[in-house]
Each structure stands twice: as C-alpha cells, then as structure tokens.
C-alpha cells in the first residue's frame, strides 16, 4: 500500500498532524496488576503494551543453564502478540520478529540491572502487545523499564527509547529531515531507527536499524532520537515519582 508522505514538505506537518519533533501521547501506569512482582501498562499513541515481571525467583529446572549454578541472575524475556493487536487478526507464536524483540530487550537491559545481587535466580519479563501502531521496540523497552522499577529490581538508571525516521529532504542538498516517534504508517514508508539511551546524560544503550538510509542522515536521526529519549525519560520519571507520592 503506497502511502503519500510527500505532503510533508509542503506544510511540515505529518500525516497525523504532528510536527517533526513531536512525540505521540505517551501514557503509562505502573503496578497495574496485583498478582505480579511488578507490572506496567504503556501507551505510545495506539501502541499498547502490558508488561509484567515475575521474580527474582529460583531458576526453573530444565530451563537450560542460565541462572542455575551461575553467580549472576538471569533475565528472561517473553514477548507475545495478542491475536487482535494488528489491523488483521493474526495468530503468531515465536517467529523471527518476537525472538528478535526479546533478544534485543534481554541484551539491552541485562547490563543495567544489578543481577549480581541475585545469584541462581531468574527474572522473567512478560510483554503482551495488545495493540500495535509503530515504535514497537521502543514501547517494549519503555514498559520493561517501568515494570522492572515497579518490581524493585535494582538498576543503574532508566533505559528509555524512541524511534526516529528520516523523511525525504525539503531542501535538495541535505540528507533528509529526521522525524521523531513514527507510527505504523510512517514505519512502512520511511527508513527509521530505534534508539534507547541510559540516564540523564543520554548514553546510547540501544540502537537498532533495519532499513537502509543514506549515511549523512544517521547523525541527524540519532541527535533527534537522543533529544526524544530525554523527553520520554522525563515522562517515565514523572510516572514513577507520581506513584511514589501516593505512598509518601
């Protein structure tokens, strides 16, 4: 389905009426589920994710190495797409995309968590994707961060993520204009990358790009992405603080 983003150069407004550096509505809640050690619910536009953490608990037997017998805890990530999450109903189980998502989450979160405090144990993250509309990995990272904080797993700092696309340039010689926080329509049309940063100073913790883009464009995208991550961090931080105030 070809989608016309060429109108962007005329009014500098995107299909959903946002400007280049605007985030979609980001709404998050923590402690949404009483049964889990920690849980979060995150909406980035129409992308909705529920994340629950169970553990740290004794490593499951037969889980194959991992936490059992090691001096460090072990993070397991389980991503599942609900059948009704997309535009068309689709049942999916463990395909390449889910494995990719869970691997990226595991490898980006593991260095942040103080897993050496939990030897011989496993922390299981379960992410249910309830509705998808672009920026899936970014939303997963943000909700995982929130859920881990809610569970009280010690970690160095927030890991927050956004996506950033590169639109065809308005002036000829430039490499392309960066767009912040893409939805699924833009995701199909434009090259984009997912960027996650750690902490206030914005160290890059995750950078994933699956599409082709001209080399000159990347710098702009990363710069806008880091800026966006800082804003997401503020929102996420606000959610955590707001929750803390309820007990103050």
């Amino acid at each position, binding site marked *: 389905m070809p989608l016309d983003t060429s109108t962007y150069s005329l009014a500098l407004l995107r299909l959903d009426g946002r400007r280049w550096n605007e985030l979609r509505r980001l709404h998050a809640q923590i402690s949404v*589920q*009483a*049964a*889990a050690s920690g849980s979060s619910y995150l909406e980035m536009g*129409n992308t*909705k994710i*529920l994340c*629950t953490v*169970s553990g740290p608990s004794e490593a499951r037997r037969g889980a194959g190495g991992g936490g059992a017998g090691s001096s460090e805890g072990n993070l397991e990530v*389980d991503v*599942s797409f*609900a*059948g*009704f*999450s*997309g*535009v*068309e*109903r689709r*049942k999916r*189980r463990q395909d390449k995309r889910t494995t990719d998502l869970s691997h990226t989450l595991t490898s980006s979160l593991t260095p942040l968590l103080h897993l050496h405090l939990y030897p011989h144990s496993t922390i299981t993250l*379960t992410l*249910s994707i*309830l*509705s998808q509309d672009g920026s899936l990995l970014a939303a997963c990272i943000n909700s995982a961060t929130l859920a881990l904080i809610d569970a009280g797993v010690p970690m160095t700092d927030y890991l927050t993520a956004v996506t950033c696309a590169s639109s065809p340039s308005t002036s000829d010689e430039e490499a392309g204009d960066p767009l912040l926080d893409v939805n699924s329509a833009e995701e199909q049309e434009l090259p984009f990358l997912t960027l996650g940063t750690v902490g206030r100073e914005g160290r890059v913790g995750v950078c994933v790009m699956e599409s082709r883009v001209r080399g000159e464009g990347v710098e702009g995208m990363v710069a806008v992405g880091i800026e966006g991550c800082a804003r997401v961090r503020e929102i996420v931080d606000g959610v955590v603080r707001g929750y803390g105030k309820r007990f103050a």
Partner: protein
Amino acid sequence: MAPSQHVQVNLSPAELSYLRSSLAQSPPIRLDHTKGPKDFRSMRAEYDVLPGANGSARIALDDGLEALVGVKAEVEKSQRSPRVDEQEHRLTVAAGDMDMQDADDDDTKAKGQNAWVEMSVEIPGFRDEDALPVFLASMLTESLLASGGLKDRLYINRRFHWKLYIDILLLSPALSYPLALLSMTTHLALLTSRLPALKSEKDEDPLFDDDWDASVPLYPKSKGKTKGTQAMDRPPVIVLAMAVDQNIIFDPCKEELAVADAVLAVACTDSTSSPSGAQVIAIRTIDPPSHLTPLGVPNAMNSATGGVVPASTADAITQRELLASSDVWTPPRGGMKRALVGQIVKAVVEKGGVAEEVIQALQSIDVG
C-alpha cells in the same frame, strides 16, 4: 479435566482439614470470612479498551487475576452450501404468502456454522495445545454456540459471512481456576461488540457503512422488540460452584477449590421466554484439584505419635476407610449427590439467582 499443577496450593493436610470443616459448617465460614456462600470476589471491569478490535473488555479480580478479551470480525467467503436450491425454494414460498420482513427473518435463520466462531485462550506458562487452555476454550465455545443465535447473525449473504475471532488473554498467572472470569470477560466483550452496518443488498459483494456510529451491535439490545423467534439475545455466562458436604459455595478461590468435594461449571443465559430468572445451557463437572492433595496420617497409624504403622497396604486401606468420617484429611473421591446438583442449578437460575445477578451486573457496566 485433570487439574494442573499451577492450580495446586501448598497447604498441609491439617490446614486442608480445618478449611474443609469450616466450609462445611452451617452457615459456612469462607476463607474470606466477610463473604457469604453466594458472594463473588470483587472486580473491576471496563470495556472498549482496544482501538483495533470490534469489541473488547478487561476484568481484574481483587486477588490479581486479570483477563482481557478482544473480539475481531473479518469478512470471509462462504463455502458454497449444498442446500442452496432448497433455500431458494423456501424463499419464494415465503415471499409469496408472507410479507417481506418475515421472509428476511427466515433468510437468516439457521444458516450459521459453528466454524464461523473461533476462540483461543492464552494463559501465561501454558502452551497453546496444553490441556487447560484447550479445555477452557472448548467449554466457552460450546456454551456460546449452543444458542445458535450468534452464528446466524454472522451471516451476511449467501457468499459471505463474518468470521468472529475471540482472543482471550489471561494477563496474570492462573492463580485459581479462571473459567468464570474468562467467561464473564468474554460476555462483556461480546455484549459491547459492534459490526459495521451493511450497505449492499442481497448477494452483492458486501459493502459496509464506514461510519462507526452507524454500526450495529453484535447482540442487539432487546428494548421493545420482543419477538418469540429471537430467544437469546445475550451471550452466556459461566458460573463456577463447588460443593463441600451439604454446602454450596459460588466463585471459590484457589484454596477453597483445594477442599472441594465436587466442582460444577454452569453455563446460563437470561431467558427471554420466561419473564424472570435464567436458563441453563450447559453443565460440566470439573475435576477439582482436591484429588491431588496429600492425605493426612492419623495418630493411630503414625508410630511417631504412639500409633502402629499398618503392616500391609491392604491393612492401611482398611484402616483409612474406618477413619473416613474423622477429621483427618482424606482427599475427596469425587461424585456428587443428585439433589446437590439440583440445588446448585436452582440457586443459579432462580429469580434473583446468581446467574441473573451476574448478567445484570455486567449489563449495567455496559449501560453506565
């Protein structure tokens, strides 16, 4: 079905015995002593939570059990039915001596197929083909299809029909037997589901009104329209009841299930044929997890407390039989008195009974 390990609770024989005897009292004292035998766990419910589904609902119970249901409908090409000629014949007759409205009614009757509704249950920690999700899905589907009204409404024309996908997600681990919760969430999701209004006529390729405000509810509200032909206009709801001795307890929690003599799942819907009460669609017995509880060792058989350990297993069985009525915990062997089944069904369907209360409560969420 076989009780799964996840539903298992870690209570000692002494604790089980204590719990059972308090539940068998008259009136029973439940684990949460503020609740009477017919009280449900408190819950929070909301509907229309998902933007991309035709209908959706989420219910969270007090103890952390939480379910989300999304209903999605897609247009699908029908297989050519072998009864086309017969139907056509009937149509011309109907058009001949009845008015058009009746003919249309006739047209959509008994044309639905069970395969048009597909249900899947996802429970964390279970695979799709595990016994528990499969069993839950089949139990929910069978009660949903029993009335036939739903699948007939999915008929568009002779070439097309709606295919209804009902995806049930248990968002929390299966703490207690989740059947009743899943059924209530499905009920709410179906009740609030809407299908786009059809604009094309007869056997044309279906064309729908793109105005969502014009969409029609999957379960039409029966205000003023009381036709005898449309018997069911609300999805069924399944109520879980368990028996302990002579007492009947509704909506048991997992610890209570661990001492149940028998567990019944009663699917019912409100009947429009009679002015009050509900009507039973299906009843199933569920194998309670109490069968797998460890049995207690009475003092008389325990050498540590001055008893004598029975010499052979046959001897041990005989001694246990004699102890059956004592307070020492022995797992119930199943079976349920017919009178007790009758009492449960009566409590469910009577006017102002449990089923009516549940359906009314879910209905009022929809309204309010």
